[in-house]
């Protein structure tokens, strides 16, 4: 469904992503793990057009998407829930969702989805008319995911969905991600909580300083200790 081939992302003179290749099959839940600055977010941002790759190809369902505009990529069904959630705080909860749904051609189905999401995330239903800026971190993350779902994603890219959330809320978010997979939405998730991510992911890639240093299923990647040593690098 998604193939990334020799992707290079540069910011000025710094090469954040140094020619990585990875793929995600339809129906999979794939985790992209690694320490801060490994180039995980840059990889996702390149997929949706937030950054222009220096070189390499990104193919989504047979179409090359590298260099496309974000507003065009999202219409293909390749949807990013960005790091830090980036909720539009001056809009109401409902407006955040409506804005995302505006790209859909079938408005009736979109509004039906909106109602369904407000039921599925009851807190959003309660706060539908309030400014999104009044939501707590966990609630905002639910809104961020619900907003992505309003875009009718075929492949959902989740960037650090649990960053900065309380442990109980982290459980809730992982629960939502598992539900999404069960519903048939393909997910590529960047996550700092490697252990938890591996519990629910089919496969994972491990990145460090812009390159992929490991990949496989949870068993293949080894236990948490093995992963941590891979994060920190040999000898540390």
């Amino acid at each position, binding site marked *: 469904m998604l193939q990334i081939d020799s992707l290079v992302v540069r910011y000025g003179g710094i090469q954040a992503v140094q020619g990585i290749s990875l793929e995600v099959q339809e129906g999979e839940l794939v985790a992209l793990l690694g320490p801060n600055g490994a180039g995980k977010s840059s990889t996702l941002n390149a997929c949706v057009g937030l950054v222009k790759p220096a070189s390499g190809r990104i193919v989504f369902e047979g179409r090359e998407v590298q260099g496309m505009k974000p507003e065009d990529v999202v219409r293909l069904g390749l949807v990013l829930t960005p790091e830090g959630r980036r909720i539009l705080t001056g809009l109401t909860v409902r407006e955040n969702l409506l*804005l995302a749904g505006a790209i859909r051609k079938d408005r009736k189905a979109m509004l039906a989805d909106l109602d369904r999401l407000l039921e599925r995330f009851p807190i959003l239903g309660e706060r539908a008319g309030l400014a999104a800026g009044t939501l707590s971190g966990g609630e905002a993350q639910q809104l961020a995911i619900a907003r992505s779902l309003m875009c009718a994603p075929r492949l959902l890219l989740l960037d650090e969905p649990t960053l900065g959330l309380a442990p109980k809320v982290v459980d809730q978010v992982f629960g939502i991600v598992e539900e999404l997979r069960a519903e048939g939405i393909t997910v590529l998730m960047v996550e700092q909580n490697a252990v938890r991510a591996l519990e629910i992911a089919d496969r994972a890639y491990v990145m460090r300083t812009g390159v992929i240093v490991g990949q496989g299923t949870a068993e293949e990647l080894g236990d948490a200790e093995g992963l941590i040593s891979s994060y920190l690098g040999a000898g540390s």
Partner: protein
Amino acid sequence: MTELIQQIVNGLSLGSTYALLALGLAIVFSIFGLVNFAYGELITIAAYTMLLTSYMGLPWTLQIIAGVLAAVVGSVLMEQIAFKPVRNADPTTMIITSFGVAIAIQSIFTMTVSARPRAVPQPDWTATSVTLGGIIIPAYQILTITVTVVALVLMTVMLKKTRIGLSMRAAAEDFGAARLLGVRANRVVSAAFALSGLLAGVAAILILTRTGGVVEPTMGLGPVLKAFVAIVIGGIGSLSGAVLGGFILGFAEVALRAGLPSSVTGLADGVLFAVVVIIIISRPEGILGVKQRLRT
């Protein structure tokens, strides 16, 4: 008492014009991050279009429609030709570009028409006035206040109730996040410039009814400076702040002109700009200014 009410009406009228102007400047800033100093030239474009159509013998109603359309088209073209290439450049580059555009447009009118003022004949009724209990209200003031109220209401409805309004509010807050949700960058930017042009065009009509139709190449400079001052007072990036700032500026100007001894009324603008300097120093975010942009 009548004197006070008279001055309040004057303040409302002048403030209305400033509010419209400031709103047009603020809407582009909130979405595009540019204080467009060529905004005044949109007024000039509207005014010269009215001059041209009056030479062609068109009635006033068609003149003002043509003028507003010209300002809208001029604003959108300005963005396409001059600002799009520097969209991702440094803010300083964008501001200098806007000065360049302003000078270029002024020069075009100087070369093709004249550096000297011309007059667009205004309908006779604009020079009449209504007397209400001892207060004299000129017709142009009634027009100005009415048009401003209608424009502000329509603008609020547009931003709150329409799809493009929603997209614009989203883009103003976080352009990147809005694009991730499918908001088309080019479309909202064009919409912002079109609205800005619309407001400049409407303001041009009101300015001409007040001045008796005087048109000259540098006529945009005064209004854009006043609009800039208004958005600084109200809080740069806040639309309601821009409107509030416009009214405060209008009232302050009227109060200074009425209150200062006649020998120093020429200093009124000087006093106003001094107040702005104090505001910038003591409260850089303005009265309604917030970190997030475009609160309606």
